């Protein structure tokens, strides 16, 4: 056997990947060839160096956490479905937008198509809020409000962003968010929770004609804005238009308090 023919066999010998017959051949060659024994020693050393070097590379802690969160979110979505097929809520925390949209279409589309088409906006938003309060919906929490907002916006292709409220004075903070399909529309939902009554904010592209039929209209002459208020079973919603998006706040808070909150927000806008 020539040395150049032995080269690949030496590689495979080192990796214990030779057949018995090949091993006999290459071992016979190695016994008689100092150059190839040298080559085997050098290649063995290199393999050891690679082994040592690879220990230097470990998955970053942040990435490990993101993947853990993704797995947890997936489980939460599955668990929510198992709870009677209710809304497969979806958190976009750390999910890549393309996948997020795919999962959104798969997990949300069918449910809301069948559930929401029959219900008006007031009932759907109040039902959603009630299910958040009762824990019927699995929720994935965020620590970073800005990131939550960015990812929600990305989930709708950047066409719009959820209307943001600073409710820290009321000790309420945006803790989670997801996209809800209502009819054929994508609605960004931001959940504010804290020590006071929770508030759910729904944002979507729309017009004032989207106001629920049951809603009462209030015209604020100072702000030159219409507000629409509705209530069902102790839960209230207040809607207004801000730019080209509609914002609906839903809470157990009194309608007057929600209105005051929205007026404050509009005053800042």
């Amino acid at each position, binding site marked *: 056997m020539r040395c150049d023919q032995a080269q690949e066999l030496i*590689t495979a010998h080192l990796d214990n990947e030779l057949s018995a017959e090949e091993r006999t051949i290459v071992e016979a060659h190695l016994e008689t060839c100092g150059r190839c024994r040298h*080559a085997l020693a050098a290649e063995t050393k290199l393999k050891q160096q690679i*082994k040592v070097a690879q220990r230097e*590379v470990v998955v970053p802690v942040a990435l490990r956490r993101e993947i853990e969160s993704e797995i947890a979110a997936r489980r939460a979505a599955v668990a929510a479905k198992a709870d009677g097929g209710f809304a497969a809520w979806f958190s976009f925390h750390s999910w890549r937008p393309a996948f997020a949209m795919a999962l959104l279409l798969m997990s949300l589309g069918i449910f809301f198509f069948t559930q929401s088409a029959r219900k008006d906006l007031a009932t759907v938003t109040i039902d959603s809020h009630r299910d958040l309060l009762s824990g019927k919906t699995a929720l994935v*929490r965020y620590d970073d409000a800005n990131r939550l907002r960015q990812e929600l916006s990305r989930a709708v292709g950047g066409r719009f962003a959820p209307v943001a409220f600073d409710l820290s004075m009321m000790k309420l903070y945006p803790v989670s968010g997801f996209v809800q399909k209502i009819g054929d529309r994508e609605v960004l939902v931001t959940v504010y929770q804290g020590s006071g009554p929770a508030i759910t904010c729904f944002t979507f592209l729309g017009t004032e004609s989207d106001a629920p039929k049951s809603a009462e209209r209030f015209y604020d002459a100072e702000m030159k804005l219409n507000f629409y208020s509705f209530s069902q079973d102790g839960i209230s919603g207040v809607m207004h238009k801000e730019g080209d998006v509609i914002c609906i706040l839903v809470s157990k808070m009194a309608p007057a308090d929600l209105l005051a909150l929205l007026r404050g927000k509009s005053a800042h806008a």
Partner: protein
Amino acid sequence: MDSTYTLGYTGWAVSATNSRNPASDRFATEIMTYLDHLYRVAFHLARNADEAKDCVQETCIRALSSQNQFTAGSNMRAWLTRILYNFFYDSYARNKRTVAVEDLLDGTDSADFWEIHAGDGPGPETLVLDHELGAKIGAAIKQIPEEFRAPILLVDMGDLTYAEAAEVLSCPIGTVRSRLSRGRRLLQKQLSGYLGKTGTDR
């Protein structure tokens, strides 16, 4: 809110207790044990940390979505690596470099090559964790064309058998063997300057 999941580093344990599918839990937990391996392969395949992160994340998502395609008892490391490699190849390796390996080796005769480099570098007794050596080997691996780099990542770093590597790379076992042999020579060549300079100190 008993089904609310509060995430964070401890959220994993919280959500695990809420899951209703023990088989899925075990599957997901096993995936997590291969994250370092996946990241190593991705880190050395990809051009930057973002690509590596993307590869690992996508691999986990695809694996979770394809749980029913995994044969229980088979080699999950190899299965995950195949998913990762396929994603990397589809997403990032379109402009794969095609370099004739003999050009890279400057026509050095095979046996002579190893003889020349046999004395380079530290011996096994000095192979303690060496940050500089690790960085150098990492950089050297990136210099090797992907077709020769991949077998090194799979076999030397990933502990895959030739047969498993061949499945990942969709090529015959003999091709893995020849590319691995050539890949190691290329790597040794890349490292020879560094190891030649420092070898006497070790």
